[in-house]
């Protein structure tokens, strides 16, 4: 099924923001915005749902906490009892203080790496993945708004052109995607 996509390119994030506000208030669904940096306040305008990355970070952290505890318990207490200067003294609970720094580090390690990998996966930007952005200039100093006609049944293409006309874009591109 072919779909027609409109790419409106802007030279300034504030111009793009006000343009997006105008389009959305006219019932247009903007499917994506490409930008070299995060634009503050764009999420609620184009209807991006709040991220759940924080919840994932907490879960990754818990994983790290559990792994570190199980690992150290096994290494230091069960498999080969270690006694360094009288501590740990063959008991995990009594010497939990000695294990806390490593538990903390491993929790942070798992949370940070898990979060970064999840982020890259969700955005499909892991190293080697094909680029998602329609124009390489959106990684430099341009901002592109993507509107798909298939997601805008209520608004015709002519109406979209008219709406976009005075919004101050620097380039307008239309593509047919198979």
């Amino acid at each position, binding site marked *: 099924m072919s779909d027609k996509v409109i790419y409106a390119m802007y030279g300034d994030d504030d111009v793009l923001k006000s343009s997006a506000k105008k389009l959305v208030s006219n019932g247009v669904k903007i499917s994506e915005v490409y930008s070299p940096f995060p634009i*503050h*306040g764009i999420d609620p305008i184009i209807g991006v749902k709040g991220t759940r990355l*924080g919840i994932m970070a*907490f879960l990754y952290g818990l994983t790290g906490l559990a792994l570190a505890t199980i690992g150290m318990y096994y290494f230091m207490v069960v498999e080969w009892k270690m006694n360094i*200067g*009288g*501590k740990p003294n063959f008991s995990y609970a009594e010497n939990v*203080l*000695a294990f*806390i*720094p490593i538990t903390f580090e491993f929790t942070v390690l798992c949370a940070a790496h898990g979060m970064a990998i999840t982020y890259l996966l969700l955005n499909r930007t892991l190293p080697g993945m094909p680029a998602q952005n329609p124009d390489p200039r959106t990684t430099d100093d341009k901002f592109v708004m993507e509107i798909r006609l298939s997601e805008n049944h209520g608004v015709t293409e002519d109406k979209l052109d008219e709406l976009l006309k005075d919004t101050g874009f620097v380039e307008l591109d239309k593509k047919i995607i198979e």
Partner: protein
Amino acid sequence: MVLRQLQIQQNKNKIMEFTITKKAKKTAFGLIGVGALLAIVGIITNIGEAHFTTRLMTNGLINAFFFMAIGLGALFFLALNYATEAGWYAVVKRIIESVALFLPYGIGIFGLILLTISFMKGAHIYTWMDAHTVAEDELIQGKSAYLNMAFFWLRTLVYFTVYLLFLRGFRKRSLLEDQVGGTEIHFKNYRKGATFLVFFAVFSSTSAWDWLMSIDVHWYSTLFGWYTFAGMWVSAMVVIVLTTIYLKKQGYLPHVNDSHIHDIGKWIFAISFLWSYLWFSQYMLIWYANIGEEVIYYVMRTENYKYLYFGMFFINFVFPMLILMSRDAKRDTGVLMFVGLVILIGHWLDVFIMVSGGSLGANWNIGLLEIGLPLVMAGVFILILFKNLASAPLTPVNHPFLDESIHHEF
């Protein structure tokens, strides 16, 4: 000139004066009344007991220090915002100032307590003040170049003077800014704020050694100053957020939004971690090294204050960590007030164990006296805080970052 007069006139019209409600006044006086009653009953019923004067002065020291430290923490936070040229805090600046302005009263009470203890030759709290004890104790003799009455008071007076001078300057310029505007005052505050931080960096450590660490006179820890400082900072942030929420509920502070509350909540969350980190670092290093003269501090506290000591750590760390972790919780005034009050009590307990673990040791007690005195101080604190809030407009109309602060949103 005409323009300036116009602006002054405008400012006068804009002033939204805070007035203490009858209910708040009644509550504060109620706290003082109930607290005083409990304390007096506590004193009368216990007066004959052994160690009673030490216990009395210990409690005076704990409460005078804890409440003075709240003012000091707020003064530090104000200077920090000046030095970093923060923008978001402009709409809550007057609240930070009002909390900091408790400091003159706090210092007065604390100074009186220190003076009384000095006249009582240390009252078994500062044992190094007693010449007989020092004569028999070689370890104290080794420290007497630093820990002697004259130098102690010299340092204490220098801390008090520097804190009060900076506070006076900040307040004076803050009120002047309301009248004249411009950026000159802002840059002066920037320089003075940074200068204060330099003084405070040294004084926060040395004053903690003088006032609190010297109670356990044989013991020393280089982390102690930061640990005390983190505790006073988080207590100050809790008081600031509670005051902000209270004023907001009373219909003041129209420009304070969820994002400001969220930001102060983040501070409480972060400083709770700082405090816990320092508490743990101090504990773990000493526990691991296992040197007799160092572990004595923790042996005393873990053996005689076991549940209180670890319970205090639990509510000051795990509590804010788990409850304040999510974004929604930091924007919920009910949750913030609940967590804030709990960790305020937690940090009072921290100071309680710091002081009375050294002075009373195993002979500690939580009775009517221990409950009554903090209530009296809390009532006095609330009255003075509200008096300070009423003495100036709640919005610094000419703060250069006011506009940024009003539009603060994330």
